[in-house]
């Protein structure tokens, strides 16, 4: 059993790999440090040693070990930064090709989904808004889903664990993020920023479907919601 939830997004694997990379560095550093902490406790125990050595550590000869360790730490830090940098850019910037554009609006205490309507453009009168608890956001698989994230009242945080994506929704600003789900299924959306008494019930779903199912869903949605619904 993996320690992560199942990864279903295009960029999730990079984050998982980053974890294992950092873990390798950290585990090495941890065991080395633990050794240099525990070993002298045994070797230089007062039962075995008559008198301590007088080492102030101000001499270069003595301090070089710490310098080596610090340089090693710095280097591994920069390796980590170098490796992660591309992934960070990928997740934080909007892809040039957006297959589906939607808006996700946080509210106390559920997520509101806004579909762009038949014209495919958000902010027009034919937008369809789904505002109910435990509702599902339908998306097609293998498509770049670009969403505008907003909040109506307080700070929330959009967390889709299976895609490794998390983003705070701040009132007063629109954040654009994206994901691309590769496997059909139903995935939890949760709010990770404390937002009131029903914070623990603020749960919705992403329902990843095949493109045909998604087309079927949107058609039925647009038919059921002739331009009567208020737009966002």
């Amino acid at each position, binding site marked *: 059993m993996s320690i992560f939830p199942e990864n279903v997004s295009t960029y999730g694997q990079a984050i998982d790999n980053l974890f294992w990379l950092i873990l390798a560095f950290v585990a090495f550093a941890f065991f080395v440090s633990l050794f240099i902490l525990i070993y002298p406790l045994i070797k230089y125990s007062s039962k075995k040693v008559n008198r301590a050595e007088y080492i102030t550590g101000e001499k270069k000869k003595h301090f070089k070990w710490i310098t080596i360790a610090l340089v090693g730490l710095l280097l591994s830090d920069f390796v980590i930064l170098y490796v992660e940098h591309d992934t960070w850019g990928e997740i934080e910037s909007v892809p040039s090709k957006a297959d589906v554009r939607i808006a996700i*609006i946080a509210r106390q205490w559920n997520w509101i989904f806004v579909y762009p309507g038949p014209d495919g453009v958000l902010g027009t009168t034919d937008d369809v808004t789904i505002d109910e608890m435990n509702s599902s956001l339908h998306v097609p698989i293998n498509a770049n889903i670009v969403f505008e994230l*907003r909040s*109506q009242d307080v700070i929330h945080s959009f967390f889709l664990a299976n895609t490794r994506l998390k983003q705070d929704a701040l009132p*007063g*600003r*629109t954040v654009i993020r994206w994901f691309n789900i590769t496997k059909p299924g139903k995935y939890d959306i949760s709010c990770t920023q404390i937002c009131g008494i029903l914070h623990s019930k603020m749960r919705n779903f992403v329902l990843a479907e095949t493109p045909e199912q998604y087309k079927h869903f949107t058609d039925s949605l647009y038919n059921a919601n002739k331009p009567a619904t*208020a737009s*966002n």
Partner: protein
Amino acid sequence: MTTTILKPGINVGLEDSHGPGNFEPIHNSPDHDNVVFATAETDYHGHPHYGRVLVTLLLLLGVSLTVGYVFSPGIAIALIFLTALWKVVLVVRNFMHMKYEPLFVFIAVAAVALIIYAFFFGVYPDITAVPRDVTYPH
């Protein structure tokens, strides 16, 4: 040992002042509780010509009030803040006697400016340069 005993009853800085050069530990003296130790404040720092500083400050105020009518807004604002900075330097150096203090004090107060600048630098893009949207229905 530069401690001096002033006239009785006048106690300058017994509680929290001692002058430079007072390096001898006084607790060795047997009757130290009965002596009023004071190092005159005049020893600590000199005094600039306060009146002249005041006149300069008032003149600078006049400048900051009039530049708005003379120059274009950009230059005027730059000049206004430059005069404000000049005024601050004058007050701190002369009225607060910063110019008689060791460098340490200047560094401590200048650190404030540095820290505030760090804060400004870190927050700047998030408050001023992010696309904002306040049009959604309430």
